[in-house]
């Protein structure tokens, strides 16, 4: 049993940057390039660890602690999330609230770190990040409520480990709505393309990249790593909602799960290569649509009595 928990943690700690690598490779493929190697994010993190750190004289300890706090919070949220057939190390009734709030904590400290530098550009990014974060949080909660209602459970591990298997047969089309809404939230929360461009670094319309403009060296490495883990957690959540099918063979299930994740990363890469970034003032509409999708699905489920 302990071996399994250890495996869960190992996957949680080691796997995430690979997703970023796959996305990068896909984008390079669509652009007709060879692209960086799959393990590039690992190399980046390793490289940053050996770099000089530069701190602004304006900053306080908050600036230095924020990357660590946010990464720790995101990893702690990861202990609640089932991966493939691995039960999470900790599970309890109502852990989904903690899950969302840990992400909120991560965002809170990063925003504070951005304000700590006193730079107007970072203030701008901080304001946007907090704004969109607060709008995506409501949809996140609504989606989790729907999933809880369908699987009659308040614990992430029970929801994602089989709680939803019968729901696809009952209310399949509605669950698609929830999935779409989740996907939009994923794009917003992880600052992927239609909302934000993770490639650019100096543009006034961007959100997440500008917040960590002043971070360097090991701090930036932590930020990058935390971002990868966050994407990984959201992706595995979405994958667990979509594919509830299990063959009950441990190895096959696990392999299948990783395959799904990789397909998912490729999908994100395709979305990024084929779409242009939205204008900033359109992003709230995207968030509203995600909210409406979710509320639409919820209404249908309520009327159907599928719960």
């Amino acid at each position: 049993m302990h071996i399994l928990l250890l495996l869960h943690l190992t996957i949680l700690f080691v796997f995430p940057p690979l997703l970023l690598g796959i996305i990068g490779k896909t984008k390079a493929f669509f652009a007709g390039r060879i692209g960086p190697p799959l393990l590039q994010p690992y190399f980046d993190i390793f490289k940053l660890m050996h770099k000089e750190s530069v701190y602004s004289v304006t900053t306080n300890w908050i600036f230095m602690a924020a990357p660590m706090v946010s990464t720790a919070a995101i990893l702690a949220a990861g202990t609640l999330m089932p991966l493939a057939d691995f039960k999470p190390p900790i599970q309890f009734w109502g852990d989904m609230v903690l899950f969302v709030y840990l992400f909120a904590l991560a965002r809170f400290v990063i925003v504070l770190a951005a304000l700590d530098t006193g730079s107007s550009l970072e203030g701008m990014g901080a304001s946007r990040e907090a704004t969109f974060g607060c709008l995506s949080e409501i949809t996140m909660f609504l989606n989790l409520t729907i999933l809880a209602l369908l699987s009659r459970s308040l614990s992430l591990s029970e929801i994602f480990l089989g709680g939803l298997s019968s729901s696809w047969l009952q209310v399949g089309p509605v669950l698609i709505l929830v999935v779409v809404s989740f996907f939009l939230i994923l794009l917003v929360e992880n600052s992927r393309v239609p909302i934000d461009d993770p490639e650019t670094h100096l543009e006034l319309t961007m959100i997440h990249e500008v917040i960590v403009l002043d971070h360097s060296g090991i701090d930036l490495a932590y930020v990058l790593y935390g971002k990868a883990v966050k994407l990984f957690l959201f992706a595995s959540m979405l994958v667990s909602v979509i594919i509830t099918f299990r063959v009950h063979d441990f190895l096959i299930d696990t392999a299948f799960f990783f395959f799904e994740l990789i397909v998912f990363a490729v999908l994100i890469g395709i979305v990024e290569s084929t779409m242009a970034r939205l204008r900033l003032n359109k992003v709230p509409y995207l968030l509203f649509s995600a909210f409406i999708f979710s509320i639409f699905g919820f209404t249908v489920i309520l009327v159907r009595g599928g719960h």
Partner: protein
Amino acid sequence: MALLLISLSILIISSLLILLFCRSKEISACVFLWSLVAACGFGLWSALSVLCQKAMSLPLTGVDFRVHGTIPLGEFYIGIDALSAFFLLLFFILSLAAGIYGYGYLRDYTGQRNTGVHFALYHLLIIVITLVLVAKNAVLFLVAWEIMTFVSYFLITFYNESESVRKAGYLYLISTHVGVFCLLVMFLIMGAQAGSMNFDQMTATQFPLALAALLFMLAFVGFGIKAGFIPFHIWLPHAHPAAPTHISALLSGVVVKLGIYGLMRVMAIVKDFPLWCGVLLLIMAAISGVGGVLYALGQHEIKKLLAYHSIENIGIITLGLGIGMIGHAYHQETVAFIGYAGALLHTFNHAVFKGLLFLSAGSVIHCTHTGDMDHMGGLFKLLPWTGHLFLIGSLSICGLPLFNGFISEWLVYRALLEGVFHLDVFGIIFSSLAIVALALVGGLAALCFTKAFGVIFLGSNKSSEGHQGKEGRLSNIDIKEGDLMLRGPMILLAAICLWGGLFPANMVYFAFQGTQAITGLQIPFVLKEAVINPLLSATRVLSFGGVIFSVLALVRDFLVLHYPVRLTETWSCGYVKLSHRMQYTASSFARPILKIFRSALVFRVEGKISKEYFPAWTSLKSSVKDVSESLLFRPLFYVIKKFSRKLKWIQSGHTQTYILYVFLFLVILLVWKLI
């Protein structure tokens, strides 16, 4: 009970002593401090003993004390049950902290007013609030409630030379009196139904549902004005900034909470309400929560921002109460228990962290002599203690894990999610609506406090006027951290915030005790376990996070030692001359979200944006206007004013005429009695 009586008598005697010695500032302050500590100590002891002792048995009447026939229509009948004890607990903690802070705050006060009188009034306020909390007789309750309103009015208007302070005081006085009228009617109906003004008999009486609905509406308006539900909140954002800091803390932490206490007391008395009452409460709670935090986002004045946040938190508390009532109406006791417990716990937590925030905001204002956040910035280096304490307060109020706000918000979420499981479609719609509202409130609160903390303490100073040296930053000489008398109470409150977040079991347990007093039912042991155990698991997640954090910190320390570290200016992204005034201000930080919610509130940006290439002068001002004030109350007051002008002829100014009125009234009474 004896302990509480000791505490009360200490307060009475010492307030008399303070008045006696009020010529000498030192003696009165000294008496104030020690009597406060002693009285609050005894009070806390009594409250805790009740909360702990009830663990074994359920007889819900606590230890009582009654003196017959001292008040007309009633008796001096007080008693502590678990509900009173829970509120007493938070009240004594906060009044102790605020009192010590007030002592430190007013010690170097050199104005005209007599601080002794202020201290005596403070003691008086503690006495009457205690009476409100322990009164078991409606008449005693109302009398104490009235005196409390007056005493707090005098405390609010401490700086009464300023016009705005007097206005705020009047507004407070008038609006709470409207509330008292409703309460009077409510208690009279209850008394008539029960045949006694004692709460015991009222609790034993069965109220018909229609009457219960009427009572609920009266209580909702009457206590809602005190609690600051959104259409009735107009006094709140004016009174809080006007009062001295420690009084604002007490006002926001306790006086506002008495509205919640009143509602809970009415629920304990009437018990069965129609379903729509709970739904109404839930909807009003959602409006108060979201509205309060949205208005808070638009404020630049720190105390006003905190005042609007009180409305938001009252909204969260009331969400818990509302889902509790709905659960009770559906006979789903699980939902009801968790909802009430969440409401109670959030009441306690809000009192603690809001007290902390007000006190630290007071320290900031004390040092910078301004409340305008856009003129602050970079105070973290100058006021490290205040900064850290404010940070703890902000993290708690946003309900982030590790701090006590999370525990109570988790309970409210839990109640709402249980509501989604256990209720029918109608109930599910409202609980999920409330979940969305609560999530929105949480997100907006985080936005608001990153703004407040970031703009006040981080970055560099934005001020262009006043306390600036030549080099454009605050001179360190006139900004000093307060001494232990100011810091101590804040540290106490911050410690409670952290303790409540890391070791939640005790407070949740106390909240369940209070819930038993509200519902009059024994909470099954299984349910308590089902609530407390997940919270302990949550602590495990957090400690895991802590382990990761320390590993990361160790790695970082190691690397920082081995690789070079450089200090420079903030990177200006290639711009040549960055000035401190180019930082993001409070208004600009909140602008995107306010633009999104523009249609929900009146949000205005004034000023002219210059189109020339080298503008000499340009100005921009954004403000958020309170809709209920201008759309609801101004027309109402206008109508009332017009109507009362018509009646003005009655007031002739001659004493003789007034005597005639009195005489006529007596004659009418006589005739009426004869018929």
